[in-house]
């Protein structure tokens, strides 16, 4: 029994890693695939300076970040404006993919939705975006994008 597993397990792992090299991790529900060159549903709730309501589309630090991110994956943004609570509920039901509302990582919502890793810190508050749970390829892509913007963001939020 033990001897058999010693052989099977490394092979299995090798196969998993081999199979996954190109696009790993993957999404259980293919969010990144659907959104790339498609439509990205973003919920926003006003919270200056992070999200500021505008005529056609919101502005502000987070809104600008999302616009740049959507451009990087060739996605059109469909904006949805609502209260933070309604937006996060819609996110939980996978009607949205991202919610921006100047959220911080200590928000009690983190149980039902996922947060990105903090992309900027201001006055000891770590700012995050809310994303649909478990879509790891999509989340990894967004986090990686936010990380690349980190240094310019730091300058932007400096008083």
């Amino acid at each position, binding site marked *: 029994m033990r001897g058999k*597993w010693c052989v099977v*397990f490394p092979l*299995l*792992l090798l196969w*998993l*890693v081999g*199979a*996954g090299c190109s696009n*790993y*991790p*993957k*999404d*259980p529900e*293919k969010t990144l695939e659907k959104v790339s060159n498609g439509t990205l549903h973003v919920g926003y709730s006003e919270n200056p300076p992070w999200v500021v309501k505008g005529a056609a589309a919101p502005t502000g630090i987070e809104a600008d970040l999302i616009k740049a991110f959507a451009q990087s994956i060739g996605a059109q943004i469909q904006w949805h404006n609502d209260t933070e609570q309604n937006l996060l509920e819609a996110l939980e039901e996978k009607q949205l993919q991202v919610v921006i509302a100047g959220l911080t990582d200590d928000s009690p919502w983190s149980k039902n939705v*996922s947060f*990105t*890793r903090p992309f900027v810190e201001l006055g000891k508050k770590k700012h995050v975006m809310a*994303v649909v*749970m*478990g*879509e*790891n*390829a999509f*989340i*990894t892509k967004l*986090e*990686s994008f936010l*990380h690349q913007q980190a240094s310019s963001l730091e300058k932007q939020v400096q008083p």
Partner: protein
Amino acid sequence: MKAINHFEYPPDLQEVFKKAKRLEWISIGYLISTAFLVFMTMGNSQAMKTAWFEDLLSLTPAVSFLIASRVFHKAPNKDFPYGYHRVVSIAYLCSAVALFAVGAFLIFDSSMTLIKQEHPTIGIKVIFGHEIWLGYLMMAVMVYGTVPAIILGRMKLPLAKKLHEKNLFTDAAMNKADWMTAAAAILGIAGIGMGWWWADSAAAIIISLDIIKDGYTNLKQAVFDLMDERPKKVEDQEDDPLLQKVNALIEKQPWVKEHAFRMREEGHVYLGEGFVVPTDAEDLVPRIEKLAQEVEDLHWRIQEFVIMPVRTIPEQQ
């Protein structure tokens, strides 16, 4: 009545015992470092959470072994006339309860994750400016947590048998089994990467089942030990062959017509009583003293053997 020996291990085993204590200190330091790393990387993986609990939990046998080892060799006194041997059995019970309870909790927790269809999120982590998928870090930590644990487990097993130390044996067995936990966790995380959100919880359930199985076996044995079951071997729950030797020794005494005896475990050592029907009353006291000494000399584990002369042996069930 005579005083129970001050130190229960004979001189050659005291060295082994010191080595066992040293290994347990190493284990504790190592387990704490693993638990810390797993905690830092666990994100919201159910399998990693399960593995983290298992790491914390596997501290129990080591800690209870070290605590018991400061107590059990104390000499009997007015308040504790049978000595402190049983603290070893109590330590064993504590480890077993911890093992079983956490196994049960984890299986519930993992099943709920599956039922509620919670999809685990694993994002990226930035280490020294490099972005890396947290899943890979989790796998690396699992490997770090496994290899030395297996080696420590293998080193402890023979010591546990020599010392008749069930707590140490449980600990060693758990260390050795650690590789299964790690393998399950790694596969679970690799599965998440493949987009199989359920892989992680499924792995966690397998790990928990293994913990529960260990917990149940040991919990049963620990309770039986405290209920004075016949002495069993450390490595399996079979009768100790030492009982046969005691029986043979009493049987071959020419002055013993009939006999019966019972023995129980108190931690590492055995205490027991023999009932003999003597052929005649001649020299009864020196004969009994000599036989009792001979039984005790059979093995270091037989700490005290009391012999009682009787007229008849009652029917055994």
